[in-house]
């Protein structure tokens, strides 16, 4: 864990630029292979999605998106992300804060637990919620007696999405928070700032780019999640189908053009995410570098 943190820091901030010494042939072969793979696995499928989506013309494309079930899937996906991302934002900041700024028993355990959703298969994450909240699950009988629906309804989808996407924000801000250390906060407190003032004036500005980067990754996963959501969704059209699930349904109904039209919306969201990510990544590297210069001028 700590290794990951420090390696990340060095890699993005203090590694000096070295001249490439490999012969041109090796360089160009490697670049060629990388580009070929990119074209094959990223560019071609993307072009494919959009060409299939518009295969029957622009009208058919809009018709597929204006279908009530498609609209409801889009709405549900956005709704779920709108709950999952802020929840994970709060969780990520608290966990990052605790881990980066304090030493306490169980700290390493907490770091490991944050990575848990990366380690388990999404299908298992979904099943866990069915086993907990299903009619025959631990809390099932009580929930059904009180007419509270969790699995096979929107709350279950939200829970599963939060679960699979919660490491992203914490993982991104822990290195940034560790990099900035505790001196500035200590200085702020000594100078009389309250806890909240310290957080908003000192901590938050230091981590904002890492935080945004985490939010974007978290959002991408929240909107794109298929496995875990599929298990808890119940697949009720127009009610519990998210966009990825709706794409599968349309595809299975021989409705390729509509399937790709909805998929293209997901792809567009992904592209926007990528662009935002690239911009933020650059700022993040710059803010980290700037911070290292001011924090440790002697070692440079």
């Amino acid at each position, binding site marked *: 864990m700590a290794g990951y943190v420090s390696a990340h820091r060095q890699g993005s901030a203090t590694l000096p630029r070295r001249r490439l010494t490999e012969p041109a042939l090796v360089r160009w072969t490697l670049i060629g292979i990388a580009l070929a793979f990119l074209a094959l696995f990223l560019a071609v499928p993307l072009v494919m999605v959009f060409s299939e989506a518009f295969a029957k013309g622009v009208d058919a494309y809009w018709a597929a998106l204006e279908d009530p079930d498609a609209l409801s899937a889009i709405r549900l996906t956005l709704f779920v992300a709108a709950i999952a991302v802020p929840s994970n934002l709060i969780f990520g900041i608290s966990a990052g804060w605790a881990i980066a700024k304090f030493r306490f028993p169980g700290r390493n355990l907490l770091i490991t637990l944050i990575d848990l959703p990366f380690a388990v298969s999404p299908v298992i994450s979904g099943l866990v919620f069915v086993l907990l909240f299903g009619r*025959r699950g631990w809390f099932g009988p009580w929930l059904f007696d009180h007419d509270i629906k969790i*699995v*096979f309804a929107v709350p279950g989808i939200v829970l599963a999405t939060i679960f699979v996407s919660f490491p992203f924000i914490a993982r991104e801000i822990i290195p940034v928070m560790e990099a900035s250390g505790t001196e500035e906060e200590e200085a702020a407190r000594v100078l009389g700032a309250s806890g909240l003032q310290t957080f908003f004036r000192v901590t938050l500005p230091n981590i904002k780019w890492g935080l945004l980067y985490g939010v974007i990754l978290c959002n991408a996963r929240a909107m794109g999640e298929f496995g875990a959501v599929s298990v808890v969704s*119940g*697949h009720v059209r127009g009610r519990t189908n998210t966009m990825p699930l709706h794409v599968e349904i349309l*595809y*299975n109904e*021989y409705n390729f053009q509509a399937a790709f039209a909805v998929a293209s919306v997901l792809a567009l969201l992904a592209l926007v995410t990528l662009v935002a990510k690239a911009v933020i990544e650059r700022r993040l590297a710059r803010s980290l570098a700037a911070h290292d210069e001011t924090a440790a001028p002697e070692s440079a």
Partner: protein
Amino acid sequence: MTFRSSLRVAALAALATAGLASAAQAQTLLNVSYDPTRELYEAVNTAFIKDYAAKTGKTVKIEQSHGGSGGQARAVIDGLDADVVTLALAYDIDAIAKSGLIDPAWQRRLPDNSSPYTSTIVFLVRNGNPKGIKDWNDLIKPGVSVITPNPKTSGGARWAYLAAWEYGKRAGGGKDAAGKDFVAKLYKNVPVLDSGARGSTTTFVQRGIGDVLLSWENEAFLALAETPGKFQIVVPSVSILAEPPVAVVDKNVDHHNTRAIAEAYLKFLYTPEAQEIIAKNHYRPRDPKVLAKYASALPKLTLFTIDDAFGGWQKAQAAHFADGGSFDQIYVPSGR
């Protein structure tokens, strides 16, 4: 209680009942069904909504959920709040009944074992039938790749498995060992098991895997209609009479207050209008008149019932698909 306060209570009660009445007017029914019935229930629902509005003046909304029959039953048991289930086989509804959500005597509540239509398992092959598949025994030849879903989760796959078993048994002089030997050879030729019938159809039709798809009759006809000129149907000498049943989920409808609509919905399936829709979607209608009208469109073959050949679903399930049953004994995933 003063006059004034009792007036208030009355007003509140009126409001509450008004709320209930308006809720009842736009009632929603959730039909949890198996995989290939998407197109069927889309058409049936439209007809039923119209019919119900004409008869009662009430608007009803019907929601659909589709997936492998066994998986859908599992979801209902785990809390998917279906008002009606329309699954691929009686055993899956029995499983829901066992969990206490449906009256155990559900199958006697509607005509024809609560199955408003029947179907069977046929073969879908690539155009020109390059592997020369004519009957079940062609499926066990080396080099023939057979696509069928997982019998653990899919209803259609269980019907197909039992049809193959019975064919093998009859060919081997009526011995169960012959049936088992036949399905063992057959499943050696199965490269991939999808979880539901539609998944297998997609594997065969769109991903181009396999030489023959063991398919619901209606599913095979749908594939023909969607991709003309690429496939053809092969009707085996004998197959199983599949009776996909329907039932109201008692506990859920009583809870949602939707019993009347749910029962009307299932009864509607037996009306000539719905039977026509059923026949047009290549299922075999129960109504003799409708059946006669569409007889030419339905291939003729010898059909046996599960009760005659296997002594009913409870027995068949225990012997073949339960943990340690014949399927677990014969199936070795390829690549191991």
